[in-house]
């Protein structure tokens, strides 16, 4: 974020914009890596300036994941591509029940990208990494010709330590398990849509973009029998619940009325013909826990920042069809389906 942003370490007089040479392996690239990336991500493993980071294994079981960020616009209310890139991988590790430790970051830069913009993104990533307690320990940079990318794409991978004995995965879900949701849904998707000028959607909605691993750690440490976790990203709550039901080969019943959606998100969805359950999130997750632990889990979650609205939204069933039934606002039921294709505003 631009507040309190230190001056870009690569003076405008030197390189106001990213050049092909910044990915060319020579002096320009070295300057970029040393003065911009290494200066921002500053940590001993990166300072070793080796081809990769070497470190002892923090636990017997590890989680390893990767994520790519291509968001447009690069900066939007409540976040930016840098925060998404860090928290996306942090959250995927968290959903494996892992404590995120180290991240890698690869940048694909478009020739002509303003150096100041890159600096803002990189600085925001460094802030996000500090906030999440992870280090960015290795990386790569490539530059492509102008027109062949959209400013900057970032790919991050991460390693996390699993420091408990639970098997947190769809296969652990059992009939009768409670399905919990960590807060209201749909903010990120609507914030991004609103930030795209062509929609002229005037709202003050901010992305929910946030790290989730502390809430997960609190759940695990409290002794709650956590069966499965899923962060709600593209495809929204619907995709998360359906994917787990399909993988586990179990059904679920969800109470639509229990799902919190803030008023501006509901309005935007009504206007555009979207279902809030299909809209993207970047700081929400669903948790499958044993039914006996559901109330305690909610208590633990609600004490965590960003999770005060945590709520039980449904129950895992066992009719063997792998479908998810939604109890609607007027008390009838329908099946919940994944979004087909792109989410497009409808005609009338």
């Amino acid at each position, binding site marked *: 974020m631009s507040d309190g942003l230190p001056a870009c370490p690569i003076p405008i007089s030197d390189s106001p914009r990213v050049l092909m040479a910044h990915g060319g392996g020579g002096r320009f690239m070295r300057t970029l890596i040393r003065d911009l990336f290494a200066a921002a991500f500053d940590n001993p493993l990166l300072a070793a300036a080796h081809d990769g980071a070497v470190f002892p294994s923090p636990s017997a079981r590890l989680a390893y994941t990767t994520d790519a960020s291509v968001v447009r616009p690069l900066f939007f209310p409540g976040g930016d591509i840098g925060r998404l890139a860090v928290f996306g991988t942090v959250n995927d590790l968290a959903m494996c029940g892992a404590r995120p430790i180290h991240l890698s970051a690869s940048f694909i830069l478009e020739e002509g990208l303003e150096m100041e913009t890159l600096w803002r993104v990189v600085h925001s990533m460094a802030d996000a990494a500090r906030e999440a307690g992870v280090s960015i320990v290795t990386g790569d940079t490539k530059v492509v010709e102008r027109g062949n990318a959209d400013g900057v794409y970032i790919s991050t991978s991460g390693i996390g330590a699993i420091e408990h004995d639970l098997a947190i995965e769809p296969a652990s879900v059992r009939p009768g398990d409670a399905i919990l949701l960590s807060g209201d849904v749909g903010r990120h998707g609507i914030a991004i849509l609103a930030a795209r000028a*062509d*929609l002229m959607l005037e709202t003050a909605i901010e992305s929910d973009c946030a790290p989730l691993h502390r809430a997960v750690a609190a759940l695990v440490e409290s002794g709650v029998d956590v069966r499965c976790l899923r962060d709600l990203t593209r495809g929204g709550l619907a995709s998360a619940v359906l994917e787990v039901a399909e993988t586990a080969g179990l059904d679920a019943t969800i109470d639509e009325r229990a799902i919190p959606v803030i*008023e501006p998100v*509901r*309005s935007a969805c*009504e206007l555009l*013909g979207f279902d809030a359950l299909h809209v993207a999130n970047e700081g929400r997750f669903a948790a499958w826990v044993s039914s006996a632990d559901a109330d305690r889990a909610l208590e633990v979650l609600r004490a965590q920042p960003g999770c005060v609205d945590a709520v039980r939204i449904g129950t895992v069933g066992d009719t063997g*069809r792998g*479908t998810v039934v939604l109890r*609607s*606002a*007027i*008390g*009838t*039921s*329908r*099946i919940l*389906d994944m979004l*087909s*294709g*792109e989410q*497009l*505003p*409808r*005609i*009338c």
Partner: protein
Amino acid sequence: MRFIDEYRDPVAAREIARQLGVAATRQWTLMEVCGGQTHAIVRFGIDELLPPSIRLLHGPGCPVCVTPLELIDRALAIAAQTGVIFASFGDMLRVPGSTGDLLGARAAGADVRIVLSPLDAVAIARANPQTHVVFFGVGFETTAPATALALAQADQEGLENFSMLVSHVLVPPALETILASPDNQVQGFLAAGHVCTVMGTSEYEPIARKHRVPIVVTGFEPLDILQGVLMAVTQLEEGRAEVENQYARAVRPDGNTHARRLIEEVFEVVPRKWRGIGTIPASGFGLRGRFRRFDAEERFGVSAIETKEPEECISGLVLQGIKRPNECPAFGTRCTPERPLGATMVSSEGACAAYHRYRRPIAAEAR
């Protein structure tokens, strides 16, 4: 949320359903005309609340669904030309023509853009004087005023690089066609509230009188639809066949007079081909007088493109309420939202897509 939650109140919904159970003494078949209503019925499971004696058939009121296949092919032919920006509402981009859809054309290099208003397409034309901008003007009477406004604006500004592929259709002739069919089962209509917001209610009076059918102009929220059904059933039970207005909070008897004047200035009533149904006389809008110079079909010489529908698709029968989506052998197997045979499986307002999205297992059991 104001003006939404009141109309989704479960207690009130059950009360109307209870009243319906009392009012309906025999079997009645109604059709909701608009795809928006079909979507709401299936999404909220409104038909679950109805007594078993009342059957809802889904009508032809999905603009994407009734746009003929050859028009999609003409759109694809225009979009593929260099120096063209093809602008459309999002729904149209996924409708398959005989060789692909507009999203596929975009992936293959065509400049296809989603706009939320026809006026956005005019703005694109203004900003790109070296490029020709074509807008795909589809929809019922509801979207016609915005299309007309865009054309009036382009006309006033003397824009030479703007044209339109027009496929506007009208509700009343479709109702006449359904009622005239020997297979017709419809005894009463829930007319499309938003169409009547523009056009008013008077053009339905002769249809109600001639065919002895109640027509209730109905809104789109669960309570609107339930109340519309109750009003239609009450008429049927009492032997009345009148035009009534359930959606009075939005629909005036004269409609939107300003919008109607604009439509009349820009469009004239013409025969239109409806996908799956065929040509219906006097069932659409075409460009009038000086606005004909904005006709994209003429400009790009694509009006000769004719296309045959896939034989397996029964969307014409679905659109007329003669078959339900789950009665189609291809439903959910050879025809899915990802690989649709017909447009009723594409648009979120299409009956086949609504069934597929909200009640696949139930539909499969019924088969």
